[in-house]
């Protein structure tokens, strides 16, 4: 059996003699059956169809909506706390405005805020979620795929845009497509002893949230009730050694924030900072390494912006944070209602629209 590979001769490929029709049927039956079993297994683990996942492609869609003026004049930037802890339906219900959700997990929102100030011409309300250990650091992201997200929304190819839409369609019908439950990710969760000083993939963040349309994140229900998952998440957030950013990093963050606030205000916009709750050892470590007086209070004083710190409002106390960093679904709704109420009192113009229909 030979191929013709001489470069000047017509290529001919031989087809191996086999029962191809039978092979085709066998493959079809086995793959459909195995995929069905896998889907059933993933659903039994708590995944569900309609959880759309999150990625730089999802973010790019929302960012382009901002560029196209397809928004209600409110944008949220931040890290995972403001992303998980904000209920966009409550926003809609209370103000008639549904914010564009541009917060990103594991990232520092400051570069997003600066780009918003310098490049977008946006003159509505920017809600900046402040997770202290991220906001005052010098780097942008801990998530490799988000490193170039601030450029990606412009550069995304037509092929990627179409692929994203097809992916969304499939995610509405199949649970196993969840990025956090890809086979390779599951392999890396095997808890085996590791070499000294090597960070185990076991300690990577596992699934924390479910996502619906327009990047509405809510805590994954299983995380709220599964002690093992909750303990794992707490373990990942550590070590709670009380370390914090260097004073010069904090100073730089405040200067950059002030410039961004001034730029947005100069064109008629407004910026508010929101410090969502944390709890347990995480909260204690923040108190030690990133104390409020040295960071949050200075940020508000030097930018002149309005801020909402959960410690200052009784209605934001006693909320449930299963893994110390993000609110449970119910508490997220409660917290959103509380902080939007404060915002509406401060900026009465926010409630200038009739309540919108909640997003499906």
């Amino acid at each position, binding site marked *: 059996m030979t191929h013709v590979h001489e470069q*000047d001769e017509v290529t001919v490929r031989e087809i191996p003699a086999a029962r191809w029709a039978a092979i085709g049927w066998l493959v079809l039956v086995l793959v459909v059956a195995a995929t069905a079993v896998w889907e059933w297994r993933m659903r039994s683990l708590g995944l569900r169809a309609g959880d759309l996942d999150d990625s730089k492609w999802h973010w790019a869609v929302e960012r382009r909506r901002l560029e196209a003026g397809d928004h209600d004049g409110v944008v949220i930037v931040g890290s995972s706390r403001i992303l998980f802890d904000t209920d966009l339906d409550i926003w809609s219900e209370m103000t008639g405005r549904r914010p564009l959700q541009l917060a990103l997990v594991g990232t520092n929102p400051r570069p997003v805020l600066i780009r918003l100030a310098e490049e977008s011409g946006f003159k509505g309300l920017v809600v900046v979620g402040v997770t202290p250990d991220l906001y005052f650091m010098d780097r942008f992201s801990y998530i490799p795929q988000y490193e170039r997200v601030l450029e990606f929304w412009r550069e995304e*190819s037509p*092929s990627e845009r179409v692929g994203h839409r097809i992916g969304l369609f499939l995610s509405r019908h199949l649970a196993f497509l969840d990025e956090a439950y890809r086979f390779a990710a599951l392999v890396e969760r095997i808890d085996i002893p590791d070499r000294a000083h090597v960070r185990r993939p076991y300690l990577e963040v596992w699934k924390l949230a479910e996502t619906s349309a327009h990047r509405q994140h809510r805590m994954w229900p299983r995380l709220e009730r599964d002690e093992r998952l909750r303990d794992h998440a707490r373990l990942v957030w550590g070590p709670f050694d009380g370390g914090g950013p260097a004073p010069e990093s904090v100073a730089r963050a405040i200067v950059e924030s002030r410039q961004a606030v001034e730029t947005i205000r100069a064109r008629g916009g407004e910026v508010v900072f929101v410090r969502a709750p944390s709890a347990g050892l995480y909260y204690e470590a923040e108190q030690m390494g990133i104390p409020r007086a040295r960071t949050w209070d200075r940020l508000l004083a030097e930018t002149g912006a309005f801020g909402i710190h959960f410690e200052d409002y009784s209605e934001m106390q006693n909320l449930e944070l299963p893994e110390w960093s993000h609110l449970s679904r119910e508490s997220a709704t409660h917290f959103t209602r509380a902080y939007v109420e404060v915002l509406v009192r401060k900026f009465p113009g926010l409630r200038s629209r009739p309540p919108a229909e909640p997003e499906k």
Partner: protein
Amino acid sequence: MVFNSLTFLVFFTVLLVLHHLPFSWTTKKVNLLIASYVFYAAWNPPFVLLLWISTLIDWFAARAIYASRDKGRAHQRAWLLISLAANLGFLGFFKYGEFLLQNWQALMASFGIAWVAPEWDIVLPVGISFYTFQTMAYSLDVYLGRAKPLSSFLDFSLFVTFFPQLVAGPIVRPGQLVPQFAVPCRATRDQMLWGFGLIVLGLFEKVVIADAGLANVSDHVFGAQVPVGFVDAWLGTLAFSGQIFCDFAGYSTIAIGSALCLGFALPDNFRMPYAAIGFSDFWRRWHISLSTWLRDYLYIPLGGNRSSATRTYVNLMLTMLLGGLWHGANWTFVVWGGLHGLYLAGERWIRSRTGVAGDPQGAWNRLALALVTYFLVNITWVFFRAETFEGAARILAGMFGFAEEATAVLPTIYMIKAGVIVATVVVVQWLMRNRELEEVVARTPWWVTGLICAMMLFAVIIAQGSGEAFIYFQF
């Protein structure tokens, strides 16, 4: 558009349906041509212009070369130079522009002249190195009298643009593909099913082995900014050897399978390269379409082995150095090519001294030489993967036990993954060394073939990722 994307799945399904509707052959070719432009434009629409310009220049240049055969070689040479200047000009501008400016800046600095290169914010058109070589081969073949210009502009355009191999090969010669456009062809049922089988195999190599299995292991080691020890350095390099093979061979296999589903045959691009015994054998097995291109259009025109031994070694080194530079605008790629040139020259010298031709006698001798070849190939991969010489030196120091204060960077699970996968890849290649895949499939019970194919497809489905681009796209 990348093969491992949902967009391609839809694109290919629509195209297959169109190709099997009862249209005329010309209409089907027009469909294929439009689809190929869509395939390319789906990445960055304006760069389709480059394809059109390249197509037009070589179409007219080849005709002019042929038409001026009675006017003397100078006329023909002038037209050939126009083709080469245009193709290499595009390649030089987009791929090597920044590299040239940076080197010029360094050269000026060495003379004490402070000149700063302007910021270079030019996007590299995907696959430009591949289709540039393919169209140049056409004009060169006509110039060298190996072929006549084509009579159909549609066939020529399709030859330049045919989507399965447009952006990452195999680099096809006109004689291999164009005659297939001349007569109507439609894949038989068996051709199509075998084509699907090859697509599944290629996706398995790319999505499961290269991306899910090995990428993060090599990224971990080559991305470490600290000295790494012997085990980490070797595992990272071996992981990259597996990753680069499965990434690139996976692409070629999907390309061959896609073309076959449409009724066209593309040549093999890989034949178990990690089972090579010696470096001339390696280059008969690795990226075959590039190595034969370099042989036919660079090494032989330079004189090949027709002159003195010294000149042959010089030709060999020049070919491999330029082959290295073809892969990327970085001196590390030149060193990669240079090392392969040295290996080939060394092997040639040893063979000329010992008079040994072909494979050595004895299974153990062959195995030992194959392992030496694989070992030396892995040394070259360090320069291919590392972005800087400092990075390469860091890894090599670890591989040869010279790293001081080495740090462990690989988690145990990564070490297990890399060890198992790379060992499997190498053993399978050794067992398949002298066999064709088709031959093995023909001898395997049908249900075993079906079972393996189903397992690979299922693995692709559950390992699905975010459609990482193929490494060779950047070349």
